[in-house]
Each structure stands twice: as C-alpha cells, then as structure tokens.
C-alpha cells in the first residue's frame, strides 16, 4: 500500500534527501505561499459581510485553511519536489550475509519438532522453503548483487553454501564478527550486511568502535532475528555476587540473581557446591515471570585453596533449558592469619572473652595491649618481644602491619595527636578496620566525641559523659543485620533474628548516639524502654569502622548452655569483617574472573609501599600458572596518570583455572625491597555462555540495525529485503533523483482538499 501511494519504497524517504528541482529559488516559493494565503484571507474577509450568517464564524477559517493548503501544494509542485537517495549499482556490489552458527541456534523453539531449529529457519530464510527454490532472500539478492555467506561465531569464515551450516560453535561474538568483516572487506564494495542471528551475544554487546567502523563506511547492517523472545518455561541464572577472596573457614555471603518464566509462585532449591561437595542449600519461592529476583545464601569457605563455587537452581518440570540453571565463581580462599590489634584501657571480661573467641579461629590472631595498672601494659599475642614494647605504635609501618584495630575502654586522650592521625590513616589509607567498643572510658565517656577522630565513628556520639550504664540490655537485629554476615548465627534469617532475641542479656550498654548517614545499624539494644544502636558499621576511606556499644556480650558465653557457639561465632565473624578485607600492599585484579569463550584478560595491580603510600616506581610482575601446569611471566607496566597502578594484557589460551601471583618490588638486587604480592584466580570456560540468554535478543539486533542505518526484519517481511537493501551509501552507489509530483498520494490529497472545501461551502450555504 505504501509503495502504491508513494510510488517508492520506504527507504527512499527514510534515507533520501528532499530537494526542489525548480529553477526559481526557494524563498520565492515561500513568498508566494505567504502571499497566496494572505490574499485568500483578504478575499474571504471582504466577502464576509455579504456571506451567509452561518459562515461568520470559525467556519470561514476552515474554508480558508483548506484553500490555502491546496494553493500551497500546487505551488510546491511547481517547484518540482524530489528525493535524492543513494542506491547501490546493480551487479557491482557485494552483500555480506552473516549467519550465526553458535549452539544457541540449535534450539528448537517450537519444542516439538527438533528439526525446526533456529539455524534451520535461517537456512530456509536464505535458501527458500522446500519446493520453493530460488524464493529465499539469497536468490533475491543475487539478482542484483554478489553475495558472500559467512558463518559467524567467535569470528567469521566464508562458506560456499548456507546448507553447510552446523550450529555447533561454542560462542557468539557479534562484535568481533562484525569488526572482522569490516576489516576484511575494507577494499571490497560491500553494500550492506545481512545478519541472521538470535542476538545471543556472549561478550556483552556491540562496542562503540565497531559501530563507528560501520558508520564510517556507511555500511548498514540489516538484522533478521530468530528464536522466541520469551521462553515459556525456564529458570535462568543472571549472576552471583560473592567475594573473590576469603579467609579459610570464613562465613561467606553470596547474592544470587535469577529470573524465571512459567513457574511464578513455585519453589525450587538454591544450592552452593564446591565441586561435588554441598556447601549450602535453601528453598526459594519463585517471583513473578520475567522479573529478576535476588536471593542471599551463606556458606562456609572451607579450607585454603582456589575454588570453583557453583550456584545452581534445581531443574523444574518441563523446563526448556537446564544448562542456564547454574553459574560458578572462582573464590581464592587463603589461610593468611589476620592480625587484630586490641587496645584495652582496663582489665575487663569482654577483653578476655573476645580473646578466647579469637583463640578458636585459626584465621585470627589478636595482639593486645592491656593497661593493667597506670604504668603497666600487658601484651598478649605478640610476634616478638619488641612488638608494642613502647606502647601504641607511633610509626605507620608499625601500625599498618595489623589488619584491624579494636579500641576498648580507653580514652581518646590516651593517644597523642600523632597516634590519632595514624589511626585515621590506618582506616583511610591502609584500608584497615577500626572497632570501637563500649566501656566506661569509651565513646562519649572517653572523650571521643570531641576528638579529632570523631568522624571515624559511625555515629554522632552524645555530648558529655554518663553514656555508659552497667544495666542489663538485650540485643535484637535490624533488617540489615538479618542479612549481614557479621551477625549471622543461624542461616535462616528469621531464625537468626529469633536467636538474637533469645541471647542472654548483656551486662552493660552505652548510648552510641545517632547513626550517621551512610552508616548501617546491624543490631539494636533494648535497655528498659529505650532502643539504642548496638552495632553500627560504615565504610571510611579504603577501610571500615564500627561501634559495638557494650562490653557485656561475655554473658552470651557464660550464661548460654555449654557449647553454644553464639558468642564466639559472633566475635569471630565480627573480627573477620574487621580485618579480613584489609588489603595488602599489592592489590591485583582481573578484567573478569570468568572468561566466557574469551581469552583476553586485562590485569591491573595497585602497589603501595610499607607506609601504604602509592609506589609508582615499583616493578610489578605476574607469575601466571594455568591448566596442565603451564606458566607465564607477565610484566605489568605503569598506567599513565594513575600513580601506583600497573597493567598488562594477557591471553589465556587454554580453558581451565589460572592463578596469577602478582608481586611487586622496589630497587635492584639484594638492596631491593619486596613490597608484597597478591594472588589472583580466574577461569576460562568455553561453551557455557551459549546456554544463557537463549531468548532472541531483539533489542540488541534492533539497536544494531538502527545505529547503522539498516533495519530489523521479521521473518514475514523478508520478501522485501532484496529490494530495500539497495538503498545504501556503502559500496558502489549512485545518487538517484526520484520526482515526487506524480505520486498518487499527491493527486489524492489535491482532490481531497478541493472537494473538501467545496463540500464545506455547500453545506454551510455559501454556494
């Protein structure tokens, strides 16, 4: 219909440019249009007094409008309007046809006929259906162009016939394939690209560079989508967020995201496994169709080592694909001991019982200095006799060897201004954790509210003293605490909250004031009728700080049944939170911990010296050990304008798990200084990604075609593709002029305007 009315196909109008072929300039046309409209208006105005009364209203304006439009149209036609559009020259251009042959194209969306795969549909689209030879788009294209058919997965490769396609490739890299086509056909007259795919791009999307390369050559990409846009029965993992590093036997928290279709309101089990060993499992209720839901699950990191942690959802009846029910993450579990410095201003039970809790955790070591008398400091857990011999450290390198610090019942004034500044730097620059405990010399009662470190405390402390009370108080979790790994005594959040309510009362409590914006209250205390923050945490600089506004949790140990783990478990988790995430001198990261059908890896390392100042003059090397014991040495080079940061690109050629030991040193030879090292684990897996996002990614295909001047084609419209594709500026093209005056729509509009104004005048009694 469009072509009947407008004489030309849509691309002429969408891609062409409107021009006026008439010899007279355009301003004359504009002047004449205005003159004609004014003239018509004057005529109607003058005739108004003698006109029928019915016409002395808006009706006169309607008649004038129709007449003015008619005159305007006639005047425009006199100026000979036309569209100029680039059109590929016949038989001189190549059309590149890219057909996705990845595994996802082997899916039979109908579910009943396994022969009706997406790949089979694509071949039919190209070659025509059985008994309809030469009716496919290839035949249509070949009437005017040369065609080259490519199979496309990680790259592209030319194939003689579309029937030869086998959907077995492990990955789809649309971006790489398009980039390769652009490069390989740089000196060929390619007029357009036709891309047949389900859009299941495994590397994340089309890069801007690729789009720019296509635009520079004015090369339109016409996309043809295959596959259902929504599965009817499927559960698919969207991702899992879990720390890349963990301390041995630490409690880990993972956030697992997934969506489903067809099972809304159903239930399944979410499991965590290390190899075949089940680490955790929990029942989950499935949310609405197509809506991503995130569930939290806790598990034990286990012994030290690089582990592939698998998160999976149990398959459901009639599920279309179960490959996408599982995802995995690499976790580097280390048995490094975290050293926590505990400064206590007076002997008290909390000190003893925190130390005892840490004694049972091989991942923790508390080094403590306790003021037993006014002039004596009792040290425990020291590494050598000189450690803390002179009291609290006054040098950064001495203090920064610890991963976390606990300040007990000790006044702010006990620390010199320099030591207070070191404490700030410990959190801010070194990235350590700082915990303030309640006590008669702690928090507001210890003068911390007025100290230079007040901004480190995650709450606004009350003014004055008298905030510490030796009265019973019970604890209860906040919603944030129910989800926190620090306060997790029982895996089930509701049971955990209940467990906290049943903990024995604490012997004392302290008013920690009001939590600061950005701080998180994990637990509150009930003291009489008051409810006050008990455990408050926040991030500060590179580190983290917390307040535990009591010194009476030791009753959780003494007044619970023998063997009850609550007290020790809480403090072990608290101390692991405090020191477990403190970075070392070298912090290495990879562009991705999972290389899905990809070998490219970008390594980055940030290096700091003993004072945790950035070390731009360091030499950084990564020793990579891969599958089958393959090893490689990779030099990391400084990143411009980012002091202390080093990078390298590397290729993981084999599938499997890799470990990179990134080390940094300064200076040469024996005089050199080892700054530290960091272990990094990553994994290359091939073929997994194709099992995910198996629905047709129409959005990606549409965006690709619209960004390049092409069009997304549905299967039913394909017959017009060979004709429409010729309007392209790429390849060898000529600019054609299409006159518009003789379009049927023009005459129909003229006729409509003329008869319309006559009919109105007749109706209103003018004639």
């Amino acid at each position, binding site marked *: 219909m469009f072509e009947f009315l407008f004489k030309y196909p849509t691309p002429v109008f969408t891609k062409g440019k409107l021009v006026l072929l008439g010899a007279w300039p355009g301003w004359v046309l504009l002047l004449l249009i205005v003159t004609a409209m004014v003239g018509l208006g004057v005529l109607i105005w003058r005739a108004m007094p003698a006109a029928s009364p019915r016409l002395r209203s808006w009706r006169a304006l309607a008649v004038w409008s129709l007449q003015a439009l008619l005159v305007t149209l006639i005047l425009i036609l006199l100026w000979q309007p036309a569209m100029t559009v680039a059109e590929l020259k016949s038989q001189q251009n190549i059309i590149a046809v890219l057909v996705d042959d990845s595994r996802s194209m082997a899916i039979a969306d109908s579910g009943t006929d396994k022969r009706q795969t997406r790949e089979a549909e694509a071949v039919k689209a190209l070659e025509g259906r059985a008994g309809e030879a030469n009716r496919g788009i290839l035949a249509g294209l070949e009437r005017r162009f040369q065609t080259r058919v490519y199979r496309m997965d990680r790259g592209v490769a030319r194939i003689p016939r579309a029937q030869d396609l086998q959907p077995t490739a492990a990955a789809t890299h649309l971006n790489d394939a398009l980039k390769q086509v652009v490069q390989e056909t740089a000196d060929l007259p390619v007029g357009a690209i036709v891309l047949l795919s389900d859009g299941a791009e495994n590397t994340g999307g089309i890069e801007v560079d690729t789009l720019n390369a296509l635009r520079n050559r004015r090369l339109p990409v016409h996309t043809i989508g295959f596959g259902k846009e929504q599965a009817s029965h499927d559960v698919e993992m969207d991702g899992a967020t879990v720390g890349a590093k963990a301390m041995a036997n630490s409690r880990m928290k993972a956030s697992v995201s997934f969506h489903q279709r067809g099972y809304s309101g159903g239930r399944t089990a979410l499991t965590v496994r290390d190899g075949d060993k089940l680490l955790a499992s929990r029942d989950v209720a499935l949310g609405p169709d197509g809506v991503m839901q995130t569930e939290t699950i806790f598990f034990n990191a286990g012994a030290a080592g690089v582990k592939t942690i698998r998160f999976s959802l149990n398959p459901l009846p009639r599920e279309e694909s179960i490959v996408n029910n599982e995802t995995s993450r690499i976790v580097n579990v280390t048995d490094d001991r975290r050293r926590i410095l505990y400064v206590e*201003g*007076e*002997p*008290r*039970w909390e*000190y*003893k*019982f925190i*130390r*005892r809790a840490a*004694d049972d955790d091989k991942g923790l070591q508390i080094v403590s200095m*306790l*003021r*037993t*008398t*006014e002039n*004596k400091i*009792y040290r*425990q857990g020291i590494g050598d006799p000189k450690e803390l011999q002179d009291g609290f450290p006054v040098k950064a390198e001495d203090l920064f060897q610890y991963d976390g610090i606990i300040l007990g019942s000790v006044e702010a004034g006990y620390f010199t201004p320099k030591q207070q500044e070191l404490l700030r730097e410990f959190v801010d620059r070194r990235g350590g954790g700082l915990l303030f405990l309640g006590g*008669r010399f702690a928090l507001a009662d210890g003068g911390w509210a007025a100290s230079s470190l007040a901004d480190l405390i995650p709450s606004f402390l009350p003014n004055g003293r008298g905030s510490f009370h*030796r*009265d019973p108080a019970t604890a209860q979790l906040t919603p944030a605490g129910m989800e926190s790994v620090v306060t997790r005594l029982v895996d089930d959040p509701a049971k955990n909250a209940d467990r906290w309510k049943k903990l024995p009362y604490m*012997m004392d409590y302290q008013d920690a004031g009001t939590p600061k914006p950005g701080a998180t209250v994990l637990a509150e205390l009930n003291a009489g009728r008051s409810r006050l923050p008990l455990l408050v945490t926040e991030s500060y600089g590179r580190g983290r700080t917390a307040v535990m506004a009591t010194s009476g949790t*030791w*009753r959780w*140990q*003494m*007044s619970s049944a*023998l063997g009850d783990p609550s007290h020790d478990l809480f403090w072990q988790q608290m101390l692991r939170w405090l020191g477990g995430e403190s970075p070392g001198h070298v912090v290495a990261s990879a562009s991705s911990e999972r290389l899905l059908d990809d070998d490219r890896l970008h390594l980055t390392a940030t290096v700091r010296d003993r004072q945790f100042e950035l070390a731009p003059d360091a030499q950084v090397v990564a020793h990579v050990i891969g599958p089958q014991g393959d090893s490689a040495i990779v030099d990391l080079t400084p990143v411009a304008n980012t002091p202390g940061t080093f990078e390298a690109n590397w290729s993981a050629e084999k599938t499997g798990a890799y470990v990179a030991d990134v080390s940094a040193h300064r200076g040469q030879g024996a005089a050199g200084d080892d700054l530290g090292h960091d272990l990094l684990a990553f994994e290359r897996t091939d073929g997994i990604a194709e099992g995910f996002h198996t629905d047709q990614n129409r959005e990606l295909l549409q965006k690709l075609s619209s960004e390049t001047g092409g069009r997304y084609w549905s299967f039913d419209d394909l017959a017009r593709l060979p004709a429409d594709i010729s309007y392209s500026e790429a390849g060898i093209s000529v600019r054609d002029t299409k006159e518009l005056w003789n379009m049927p729509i023009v005459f129909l509009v003229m006729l409509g305007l003329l008869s319309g104004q006559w009919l109105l005048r007749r109706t209103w009694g003018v004639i």
Partner: protein
Amino acid sequence: MKVVQGMIVAVVAVACCTGLFAYQRTADWGYQPEQSNVKAEFAWSRLSYTSNAGNRGYGYGYGRWASWQRDYPKADRQFLIALNRLTRVQGRPTEQIVNLDSDEIFNYPWVYAVQVQTWSFTDEEARRLREYLLKGGFLMVDDFHGTADWENFMNGMRQVFPDRPVEDLENKDEIFHVLYDMDDRFQVPGEQYIRTGRTYEKDGYVAKWRAIRDDHGRIVVAICHNMHLGDAWEWADDPEYPEQFASMAFRVGLNYVVYGMTH
C-alpha cells in the same frame, strides 16, 4: 532468784567472752547477707559450698560459722582495696557470695574458695562448676594444708573434672608474670605464724603452686596448696604479721585476678 540472776550473768559473760574470742581469732566483721548494689566490672566472688559432714562447718553456714567463710569478709575487702588501688580493674568494694545451686555464678567469672578440703558437691553442683570453668570461669582455691587436705580437695575436684590432670606450675608460667614477675615465691603462712613461727600447717611443709588447665592450656583452676593467702590479706594490717607474707599474698592474688580476666 539470785541463782537465776547469777546464771544469766554467767551465760552473758560466757557469750561475750566467746564472741570476743571468736572476733579475735577470725577478725570477723560478721556475716552480712546483703549483697552490694554497687555496680562494677569485677566482683570478688567467694564460693559458698556444702561441706562434708566430717568437717567442721556443715552447711552453708547461714547464721553460723562455716568453712567457706574462713577469713570472710575482711580478707575479701582488704584484697579489694589492694585491687582497686594497685590495678586498673574496677572492683566492687564488697564481695559477692556465690554458690553452685543456681546459675547466678555464671555472672561472676572469677571465684575464690577456701578450706576446700571440706567441700563436697552433688552431681548437679559438680556439673555446674565444670560448665562454669569450661565456659570461661576461673577458680582460685586457698587455705588447705597437707596430704589429707589434698586428698579431700581432690575428691571434690574429681567430681568436677574426673580426667583433667593437676600440674605443678613453673616459674615461667604466664600466671606468675601477668602483672608482677613472681619467680621468687615462698610459702605464705596464716595468722598462726604470729604465735607459732611456723610457715606450714599440718604436714604441708612446702607451698604447692598447682593448676588445672582447659583444652587450650589456659589455667581454669589455680590451686594454692599449703599456704594461706586469705589470712595474709586479712592480717595484712596487723603489725605482728610479717609484711613480706602479706605482700606476696597480695601479688599472688592480683596476678591471679588479672590472669583470670585475660585468659
């Protein structure tokens, strides 16, 4: 009538003399059942236990003298004065009596017991004391002397810990260095030293510094055998009682309290 009056006077006189004698022998300030309301971090707790029938002081002794009360409460309060003066421990100025018949003892993780050769436990009491010690409690025992007392003490202790060994502490043990370095220890006698000049009682000629440890090697029961530290605290203000004994007793007690609060 005169006979009756004479008898009354005689009874009163005997009672007064007996009371005076008792006061002189124990310097007892009298039993004070009220517990202190002062709130502090550390409460000196004295274990009130059931004595076996063969010994003097059967029962908890409410209203009468019992073996667990030896030197009570002056020794306790003298020691608390020293504790508050010499350390940063916030000690309650008065003592706390605890027993093994209720869970109240779990609120006091440090407990002192004397005359432990007379103690005896029911199964429930032994279980409670065992749990108390394994959960983090600390027990210091004092004022029992000689072989027979040791055996009687161990009879009770084996009810609590049937298998845990008792070991002799060495000078290098942390409990002797946590506050004061106490490599040169000596036997601390009771008040009887003033009259007899003997540092020992019964056949307890040599002071024994012993302990029972938990699975982590931490001392949970500190045993002061063949010495009488409590008397030394109690009589520390007596000009006739030698200063070196009192000083040693205080240092031992302070070390044991600080050890109990740190390990």
